[in-house]
């Protein structure tokens, strides 16, 4: 089955489900807003006065919005005897009665507390709360809240804008992938570090020395490792063509497995499956600096002509890059950790900065569809830039002349981009 045929199905499925989700979320928003929420006004007043200390007042129980029906928020005004200095209140004890059963203590809180989130409730059960202020030898019970039942919600309406923007940017990426598939030529500018790969591999071939590939120190559950491996796929294809030696010492067992699969496939694609060997990838140790000690040893003993450092790196970035430099290797590095990028810039010949790391595989593939996804990414950048310019302009003007609609625009924008 060709890739063209296969990807249409998932694409349509993906977009369709995003769209349906959006429609449902906008339709139900009104409903959700109305169903908020059996707020427990303090009507049930069984006030027990114990001399010596005053109770907490205005206890209110509210369902926590848009969740799985498993939390209730409680708010109250602390007892007037709860003072930072010389106050009588030593603690608050929070009680809950489930479905009209005897109330039991669910929490003990320090003086000064005025809210609590009860995350131990079950959807659709009925709960009544009260709170007792405790002092030395005396206590005071607050009035009870009205019964409240938390409900399970199926959509988190708070995240509607996150959904909308994710939809727009995903759609842009998918749109350009599809456009490219139909044969429209898309322009992508040159990325220096990636243009240098062929030369770097060629150099290793000429010198008869190996190429070292380091996919970072994190496991397969990090996106940077995935990015590193996708680039490994492209590079090892070139290496297979040049008939040069590649060696990838890794620090995670799963990365070892994935790297082997990746290199093997590239060798197969190059028509040289016999040249592949599992020994191209070996596991060293999971320990960060143990791995560094091992890789440093490999570098000084094997003297690779080219070193690739592509993935997630921490403090070891500079140790590896400087050692590579000292053996005279051409080094191409890339990571999404801003704190480590300066060290790669100082010690390596080419550095892929953040986004370039994730774009590299698509760029190297040269396939129109992959390049299309880079174009989609640019739409995201354009949106971010427009919002920044419009937002800064509106808020600056709005502050200066107190223009009403500018305030509205700013409020609207920050509402959209706030992530709850």
């Amino acid at each position, binding site marked *: 089955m060709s890739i063209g045929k296969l990807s249409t199905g998932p694409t349509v499925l993906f977009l369709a489900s995003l769209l349906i989700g959006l429609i449902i979320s906008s339709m139900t928003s009104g409903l959700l807003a109305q169903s908020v929420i059996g707020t427990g006004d303090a009507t049930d007043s069984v006030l027990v006065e114990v001399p010596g200390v005053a109770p907490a007042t205005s206890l209110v129980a509210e369902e926590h919005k848009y969740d799985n029906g498993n939390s209730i928020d409680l708010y109250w005004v602390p007892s007037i005897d709860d003072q930072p200095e010389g106050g009588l209140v030593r603690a608050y004890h929070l009680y809950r009665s489930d479905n009209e059963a005897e109330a039991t203590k669910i929490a003990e809180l320090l003086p000064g507390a005025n809210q609590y989130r009860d995350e131990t409730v079950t959807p659709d059960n009925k709960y009544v709360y009260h709170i007792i202020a405790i002092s030395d030898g005396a206590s005071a019970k607050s009035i009870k809240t009205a019964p409240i039942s938390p409900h399970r919600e199926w959509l988190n309406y708070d995240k509607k804008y*996150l959904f909308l*923007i*994710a939809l727009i*940017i995903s759609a842009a990426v998918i749109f350009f992938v599809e456009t490219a598939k139909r044969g429209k030529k*898309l*322009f*992508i*500018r040159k*990325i220096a570090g990636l243009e240098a790969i062929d030369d770097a591999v060629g150099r290793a071939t000429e010198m008869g020395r190996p190429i070292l590939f380091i996919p970072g120190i994190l496991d*397969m*559950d990090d*996106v940077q490792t*995935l990015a590193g491996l996708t680039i490994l796929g492209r590079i090892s294809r070139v290496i297979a063509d040049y008939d040069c030696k590649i060696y990838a010492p890794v620090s995670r067992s*799963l990365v070892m*497995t994935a790297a082997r*699969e990746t290199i093997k496939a590239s060798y197969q694609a190059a028509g040289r499956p016999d040249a592949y060997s599992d020994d191209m990838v070996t596991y*060293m*140790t*999971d*320990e960060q*600096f*143990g791995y560094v*000690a*091992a890789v*440093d*040893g490999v570098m*000084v003993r094997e003297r690779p002509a080219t070193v690739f450092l592509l993935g997630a790196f921490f403090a070891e970035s500079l140790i590896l890059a400087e050692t590579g430099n000292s053996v005279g290797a051409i080094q191409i590095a890339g990571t999404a950790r*801003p*704190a480590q990028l*300066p060290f790669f*810039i*100082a010690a390596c010949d080419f550095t892929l*900065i*953040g*986004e370039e790391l994730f*774009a590299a595989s698509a760029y190297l593939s040269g396939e129109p569809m992959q390049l299309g996804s*880079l*174009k989609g*990414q*640019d739409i*995201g*950048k354009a949106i*971010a*830039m427009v*919002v*920044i*310019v419009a*937002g*800064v302009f509106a*808020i*600056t003007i*709005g*502050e*200066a002349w107190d223009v009403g609609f500018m305030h509205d625009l*700013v409020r609207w*924008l*920050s509402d959209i*981009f*706030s*992530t709850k």
Partner: protein
Amino acid sequence: MEHLGLWVAAFLTLGIYSFLYRDNPWYKLSEAIFIGISAGYWVVTLFWDNFYGKFWVGHGEDPWLWVGAVLGFLMLLRLVPKIGWISRWPLSFIVGATAGLWMMNYFSSNIMLQVKDTIMPLFGSGYTASAYDIVGNIVVAVGTFSGLVYFFFSKEHKGAFGATAKVGIWFIMITFGASFGYTVMSRMSLLIGRMDFLFSDWLGLIK
């Protein structure tokens, strides 16, 4: 016993430092010990924390954990050449999960939050900012904008666009310089820490 431990620690410390001179048997010995002991340490920790602590203790209460165990088992089928291809299933599971999980995480923390934080009044609330702050605010807005221009892939860096991208890379370089300068001091203190161990804990020269 404590004395022996101190000498072992000092021996290994000097062994690693000897690498700065050149590769040598002392470093090779320290490296071999490092690899063997640390790999063993990780298996044991993974076994007790993840397998025993998370799966063995929890699988009765949470039968879903069997999914992890089954996927883990499928991974081992690599060792059987004929059905080794099944191990791609857990691998693709991990890739799908990582991609899906991080995509939304990065979406809110890297894109939405940063864009929102950049929207601020250049002259402060109600024109109260000092000249110093105003310059700072303008620099942040211009720098973020031009930095994004630098990362644009689908347009050649030429003309006004290229000039803006150039400004963008300047900002990015200043950022790198700042992190570089910021880190140098803390790296030096690491060295001081090791010297303190050698001269005070081990040799007792500094009290």
